[in-house]
């Protein structure tokens, strides 16, 4: 009976959140834009007119036209096709980093908040990592791991882990003192059950908002790493790589930089819009 009541409450809360999300214009704009990029990424082979690495000596640095929407680069590669395939790299990195750093950060945050003996040690390590410039730490880690997309995911997950751990810890510390947690403990529930059933569901909202932010940041920093030549190695069509290559012929072919830069802005903007709306809907306190 009690479980039935809990289930109905959780369904109605979910419906309430969905309704508020659908009524929020910013959220809808952000989600639609993000969906467009998701479709581009998933259906890249169908949407892109050319292979992203197909070179054509006849079409070197051609301006935008009907056959090449965003023109071509110095190898005669179609910039539109490269940008479409680039969505795969960026979204893959952004999504993986937000999931991986989310899982690890939540674990660290939970342990720190729940087992106070480890709190000081864990949070000192997190603080030190936080005090270090994110891009510098990412570059240093990439030096150790070597440039590849997978390593960029690992490096960025390490870089963004402390932020999630901090948010999780502070939320858990607040929730831990609530009377329903005390009641659960009095009823004989163990640590694992309290964490899973009572604490995690209540800190999830703040974590989702935080990880949306990490999603956007990871895309920006992956682009920066590739731009510096230490991220996804060329000739992979990552947006940072396209921007890096465009630097040498900015004077004669500015469209390459314009196209790849604009898509980074649009995709990051769409995620930020979704994140901002989620924050307003899920956790007005944040």
């Amino acid at each position: 009976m009690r479980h039935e009541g809990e289930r109905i409450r959780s369904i109605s809360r979910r419906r309430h959140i969905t309704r508020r999300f659908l009524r929020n214009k910013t959220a809808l704009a952000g989600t639609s834009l993000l969906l467009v990029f998701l479709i581009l990424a998933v259906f890249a082979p169908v949407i892109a007119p050319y292979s992203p690495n197909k070179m054509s000596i006849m079409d070197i640095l051609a301006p935008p036209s009907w056959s090449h929407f965003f023109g071509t680069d110095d190898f005669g590669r179609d910039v539109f096709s490269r940008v479409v395939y680039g969505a795969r790299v960026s979204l893959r990195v952004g999504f993986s980093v937000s999931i991986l750093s989310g899982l690890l950060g939540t674990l660290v945050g939970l342990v720190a908040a729940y087992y106070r003996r480890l709190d000081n040690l864990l949070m000192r390590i997190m603080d030190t990592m936080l005090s270090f410039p994110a891009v510098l730490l990412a570059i240093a880690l990439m030096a150790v791991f070597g440039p590849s997309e997978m390593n960029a995911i690992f490096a960025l997950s390490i870089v963004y882990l402390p932020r999630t751990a901090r948010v999780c810890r502070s939320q858990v510390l607040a929730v831990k003192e609530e009377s329903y947690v005390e009641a659960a403990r009095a009823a004989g529930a163990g640590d694992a059950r309290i964490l899973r059933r009572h604490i995690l569901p209540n800190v999830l909202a703040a974590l989702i908002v935080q990880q949306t932010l990490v999603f956007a940041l990871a895309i920006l920093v992956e682009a920066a790493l590739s731009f510096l030549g230490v991220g996804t190695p060329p000739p992979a069509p990552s947006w940072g790589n396209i921007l890096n290559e465009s630097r040498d012929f900015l004077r004669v072919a500015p469209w390459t930089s314009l196209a790849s830069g604009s898509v980074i802005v649009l995709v990051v903007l769409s995620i930020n819009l979704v994140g901002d709306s989620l924050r307003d809907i899920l956790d007005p306190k944040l």
Partner: protein
Amino acid sequence: MIGFAARRFVAMLIVLFVLSFAFYGLMELIPGDPVTVSLGTRATEELIQARREAWGLDKPFLARYWAWLSGVLTKGDFGKSFYLQEPVTDIIASKLPVTLELASMGLLLSIVIGVPLGIVAAAYKGRWIDKTAIIFATLGVSIPGFWMGLNFIFLFAVTLRWLPSGGYVYPSESISGWLQSSIMPVAAIGLINAGAVARMMRSTLLEVLNEMYVTVARAKGVQERWVVIKHGVRNAMLPVVTIIGLTYASLVGGTVVIETVFTIPGISRALLIAVNKRDNILLTGCVLLVAVIFIAVNFAVDVLYATLNPKIRYS
């Protein structure tokens, strides 16, 4: 307070030791060493052996790490970069000031733009001016700084030819040259960060304007302008300044990428050499010195905050 500072200092030393060991050691695990990278195609077995001996790479890892660590602890010597063949402290001493200068000027610009924008947005909440400020701020956090830099180069250097497209002139050489070479990078850093500052200022001020004492001031008939300035902005500034101080580290990270766009000889060049040439002495030196600086800055911000705000007590 002294106890708090001492504990933080000891924790910092431990973390720095772990960092140094991790970065010094991890580079060893990856295939390829600075000798083969530096010799390139000229590498022969004898040349490689001779250079490994000359650079001390023939000794076991722990012996090398110990020698390096004793140098750091006893003489403050962070070793000599394999690739550049210069002391790491000299390299960083010549490059880090340029990075910090750009980051500081960028931070200043972002405060000059972001703080008034955030105040106006909060004071006119929900009106068009607030909406415009929010759009500007959201765009600011979504645009990559290095792309903004590329666009500046295309507009002001390539098309209009007003400014140099890159390079850096030290202020000691020419003030006007320094200004010209700094305008675009500083503008790119400042504009991007102004969005974040404006968001912070707006949300903090809105929180303060909801406080009881603000309602009391309004009820007393104080003009709205004075309510915002005297009661609102004054009380919102402390948390905002603290947060801005703490975001300085991320600003420096952004500056490193901007340096590459404008070919500025800052810390990014040293770091990228360390990465590409597998120079673990240079990498560990850069990581440690930058870590020391930022941990110190954050510690100073913490202490300053505690001094300014008597509600905070450290245990």
